[in-house]
């Protein structure tokens, strides 16, 4: 049997009366990319801080790379990389100087290692670029390089691509997949559904509880109670009132210029069309929609 890289058992952390992390259990296998999805305040960062040994659990335990995360946190931190949401780069240092500085923190003074890390994240040739002058996407790469300079076996990414555009995000994720294929295990926390889609398995956090953990495909198949439809109706708000009255309609929401609805499986386009027409709502188009992790989250949150 393969030893999990992260093993979390009944992990619990209180701040006063507030239960930040509530009896959480999960395992992460070597080379896996696991997402930790939840809104701000749902317990994601508190979990990561416990895994890094920065906070002591009130109950339960976390084993990371075979070490007790709290009692042997030095061992964990020497072998794990952490890229925080608010990574601190020195703006008035160059790319090389930033990486050299942080490498020194880990006892890395080998210039070839720094060079190789810059190459890995695609920053070769930017050694003497001043950090201040870099775009959000480039800064993220440098922050990743800093988390990777000591060749960690495990990488924690806390909201790694917030604020970058899809092109830069995609380039970032190409790198993450490359690292995973080389055997690095990756735990990514995010509050964005877009980002969670990139992970192999996704844990859904809310109010300190881990509500589910599975592949995006399985989460959608198991937790969305039916089929998704996009309904273009006129007037829109009349459609919003009319849809829930139709038999088999489970959930309706406004989605910009149309309505998004989830129906029991087996409900057909015509059923929706006729149901709306009988209530005097005009329909210009109804088409099947793609289920999203947001649908999953809302289903789980509403219990």
């Amino acid at each position, binding site marked *: 049997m393969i030893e999990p890289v992260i093993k979390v058992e009944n992990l619990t952390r209180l701040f006063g009366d507030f239960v930040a992390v509530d009896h959480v259990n999960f395992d992460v296998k070597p080379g896996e*990319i696991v*997402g930790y999805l939840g*809104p*701000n*305040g*749902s317990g994601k960062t508190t979990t990561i801080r416990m895994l890094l040994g920065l906070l002591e659990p009130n109950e339960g335990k976390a084993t990371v790379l075979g070490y007790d995360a709290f009692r042997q946190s030095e061992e964990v931190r020497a072998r794990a990389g952490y890229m925080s949401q608010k990574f601190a780069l020195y703006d008035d240092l160059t790319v090389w100087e930033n990486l050299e500085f942080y490498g020194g923190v880990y006892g890395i003074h080998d210039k070839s290692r720094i060079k190789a890390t810059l190459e890995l994240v695609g920053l070769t040739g930017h050694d003497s670029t001043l950090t201040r002058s870099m*775009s*959000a*996407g480039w800064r993220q790469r440098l922050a990743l390089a800093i988390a990777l300079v000591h060749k960690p076996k495990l990488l924690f990414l806390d909201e790694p691509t*917030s*604020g*970058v*555009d*899809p*092109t*830069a995000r*995609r380039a970032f*994720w*190409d790198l993450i*997949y490359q690292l995973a*294929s080389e055997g690095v295990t990756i735990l990514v926390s995010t*509050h*964005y*559904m*877009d980002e969670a*889609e*990139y*992970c*192999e*398995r*996704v844990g859904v956090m*809310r109010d300190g509880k881990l509500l589910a953990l599975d*592949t*995006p*495909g399985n989460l959608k198949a198991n937790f969305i109670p039916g089929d998704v439809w996009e309904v273009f109706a006129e*007037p*829109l*708000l*009349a459609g*919003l*009132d009319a849809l829930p009255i139709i038999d088999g309609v489970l959930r309706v*929401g*406004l*989605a*910009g*210029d*149309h309505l998004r609805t989830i129906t029991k499986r087996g409900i057909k386009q015509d059923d929706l069309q006729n149901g709306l027409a009988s209530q005097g709502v005009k329909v210009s188009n109804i*088409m099947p*929609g*793609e289920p*999203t992790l*947001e649908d999953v*989250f*809302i289903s789980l*949150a*509403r219990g």
Partner: protein
Amino acid sequence: MSDYLVQAIGLRKSFGAVHAVNGVDFNIPAGEIYGLVGSDGAGKTTTMRLLVGALLPDSGEAAVCGFDVRKQIEQVRSQIGYLSQRFSMYEDLTVLENIRFFAEVRGLSSKEWLPRSLDILEFVGLANFKDRRAGQLSGGMKQKLGLASALVTRPRVLLLDEPTTGVDPVTRQDFWQLLIKLVSPPTQLPPSSGKMGGEQEGGRVSVLISTPYMDEAARCNRIGFMRHGQIIAEGAPSELRAILNERILELRGDPMPLLRRVARQDQDVEDVRAFGDRLHLRVGEKKAGDVLSRLPSAIRSEQGRVDDLRAVPPVLEDVFISLAESEND
């Protein structure tokens, strides 16, 4: 006076050598939610700051409800409700006291603000919390209080700078339902939705919202993709997605690295995007059929497994990446 509530023509603003806003044009009619979509540094916030008069444009024109942002900034501001990324409220004051503060700063008399505030709190769903201290509200409620404060002057134009970053999807869903109701014509309002929405003096409201996230952009009536200070494409989400109709295939199988490699080798596959448990392939125009029939056997001949290969509707993220690539060419 034009029919548009917000107009920008050739708007430019530089900071030193950085062209933050580099020739932006858009028109937002009443009743529309317009999304400015792009990364940090694409020029979204600068555009908003130009519209509220916090910055002066280097060149170009902008108008809000027909008032020129250069010459009539007081009139412009009287028409705008602005919710900035760093919206702050007084944590020691109650919900109602916070709104009162914003109302009085904007010169509303107590006769005006109280009934109006109660309507707004009803509309945003905070009526039962009006006496709670703002510091005791959840993240989602704080955000609704921010929206309520921005609405108290009954603005025709609402500017929202990344309003839902970090909030619970359930709350975010509620927030969007409010925005869509706000811009909808009053005749469409179901009786349950109170006195807000469409009933602003002088007609329907427009919303300009900025976001780096595509799932949020998909909820707008129209969006402008911003990159390097310019709008590189504009349209309804469905129009923009239609650019790539029949050109996105979803592939599931095992092992993923092999699937990626073989897919990349196919002559008609332009781009391969990896997700956790699947790949999205962008194929050339009218090439979906060829790839659908050819790729599975190519994968099997290399001992890979194909569980599913099918055309899927394009998402805005596909479109953005494709547009950004052609811009770089």
